[in-house]
């Protein structure tokens, strides 16, 4: 078993990168706007389908779909927040929750209706390629996702802390009236934030597709882990999401190795509960008194 620890850790890290990527968008929407976005998994599913169809019909490699899907999903997210979620929820947090829930129902079931419950996966020439590292074989697609996550999180973080829009997003999240007073367009800012979240999901989808599959239910496979990642990293903290995603990947991998894969999930949720109890601000989050 001990000889498996290193490969398991590496494998966990590459899986964790995917969690981090999915969580990036969620931590923005959830940590910053305080919207528990139940539709996040559905957006991921939608993006996976989009990448799949681009590859299947357009012959476009999933990685090359990134420049197309990123802006498309930004717009989709923007539109959803600005013209569906915000007006429909009348500003109440509970209602936002239900609207995103209903949205996920709509997206999932439309996908089921139009694309059926068939599993699809892309056929790419490098599907079985691996990278050998420290004696372990790492699937090429996962290594790419790992590197992309390492790049995406800091970029997004810079955006949030160094740009006007970034500060505006954070300000709006905390004190709406105050934001209006300084002249921030609240609805626009919310929508931009949501759009960025959706774009993150599209990125995650393009990086996930080569090593995974698509079904209308696929979003649920990731959404709970993504929530865990967000909390562990500290709500709204982008570097936190990255570190937490990687950490969770490793925790899950090692728990799976030693407790059995069935109980491996327990590792994630136990970590989740412990973090919530003892450091609810997360690894890198900060909390006002």
């Amino acid at each position, binding site marked *: 078993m001990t000889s498996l620890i290193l490969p398991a850790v590496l494998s966990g890290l590459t899986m964790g990168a995917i969690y981090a990527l999915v969580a990036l968008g969620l931590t923005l929407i*959830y940590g910053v706007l*305080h919207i*528990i976005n139940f539709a996040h998994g559905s957006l991921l599913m939608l993006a996976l389908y989009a990448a799949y169809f681009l590859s299947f019909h357009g012959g476009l490699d999933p990685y090359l779909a990134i420049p197309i899907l990123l802006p498309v999903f930004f717009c989709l997210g923007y539109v959803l927040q600005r013209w*569906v979620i915000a*007006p*429909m*929820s*009348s*500003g*109440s947090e*509970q*209602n936002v*929750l*239900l*609207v995103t*829930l*209903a*949205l996920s*129902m*709509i997206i*999932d*079931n*439309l996908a*089921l*209706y139009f694309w059926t419950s068939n599993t699809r996966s892309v056929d790419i020439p490098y599907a079985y390629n691996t990278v050998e590292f420290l004696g372990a074989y790492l699937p090429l697609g996962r290594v790419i996702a790992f590197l992309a996550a390492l790049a995406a999180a800091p970029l997004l973080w810079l955006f949030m802390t160094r740009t006007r829009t970034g500060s505006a997003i954070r300000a709006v999240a905390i004190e709406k009236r105050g934001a209006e007073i300084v002249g921030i367009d609240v609805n626009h800012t919310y929508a931009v934030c949501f759009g960025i979240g959706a774009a993150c999901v599209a990125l995650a989808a393009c990086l996930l597709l080569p090593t995974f599959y698509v079904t209308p239910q696929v979003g649920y496979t990731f959404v*709970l882990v993504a*929530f*865990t990642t967000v*909390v562990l990293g500290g*709500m709204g903290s982008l570097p936190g999401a990255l570190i937490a995603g990687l950490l969770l990947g490793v925790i899950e991998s090692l728990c799976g190795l030693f407790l059995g894969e*069935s*109980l491996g*999930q*327990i590792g994630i*949720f*136990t970590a*989740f*509960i412990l973090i*919530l*109890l*003892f450091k*609810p601000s997360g690894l890198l989050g900060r909390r006002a008194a």
Partner: protein
Amino acid sequence: MKPQSMGQAVLIGLALIYLASLYFMSSPVWMGFTINALIVAVVALAWNITGGFGGMASFGHAAMYGTGAYASAILQVQYGINPWIAFGAGIVAGAAMGAFIGALAFRYGLKGSYFALVTLAFAEVLRICASSFAITGGGSGLQLRLEPGLSTLQFNDRSVVYTILLVIVALVMALTAWLKYSRFGAYLIAVRENEDAARALGIDTYRIKVKAMAISGAFAGLAGVLYLQVWLFIDSAVVYGSAISIEALIGPIIGGAGTVWGPLIGTLGLHLLGEGAKHLLHNAPGLNFVLYAVVLICALRFLPQGLMGLAARIGTFRKKEDDNA
């Protein structure tokens, strides 16, 4: 429990007429589906105690619901305990689970979405455990032996089941109403509105919240046991899955959180909506959920305070109850 406006009175009246009319419709379909709705309504009422009055929105009422169901099922199936005793044990187990989760979460001052997520995580942990250990029947779940009778709490006749459920829902609502107008209820609402202020006014907020979780857990556990007794089968995905947690909160929010009638009316309304959508689009499974969700979103647009909130604005009665008190 008293309606505060014409609108509310009409809404409550409609719900009562619907529930009563089932006795005359003799349609097993409607009764069967209303039985499901009533079980969900009990969980919704449970959620309403913590989420509606206490402002502690949980995403994991399945944790208590499932614990109630499993406790009762394990006692009956694995230990051959009398179903009546198991019934009570299920309620107690639900309350204990609620108190446990509450005690842990509130000890560390969790609120808002943190609380919501920790309950969700607890439900998930329980789900994984329930599908992994032998005592819970593992992935196969637990099944009660089919032997209808008063002593086994299984009833073949739908209308008997239905009547029992109606009585239980009424009892739970009466308890809710009593709680609402008690000191405990006032304190719970105070905690919801502003916890710091509540603490300053001499409220032991920790105890109030844990107590609310225990009561809510007892109701949720009760609902779990009811599910078990009606359908005789549970598995981890059914009773610890997120579907029931979501149903528990969606009914009260649509109906009106923090009201006595809201959870029942919301749950009934949503189930009727779902059933209606199914009938309209029965050839296209899946699209019924789309229709349901679209109506739900529109409802939220026009019912920011839930159905009871909307109804409250129609023909308000002059409210002078406390004046001469």
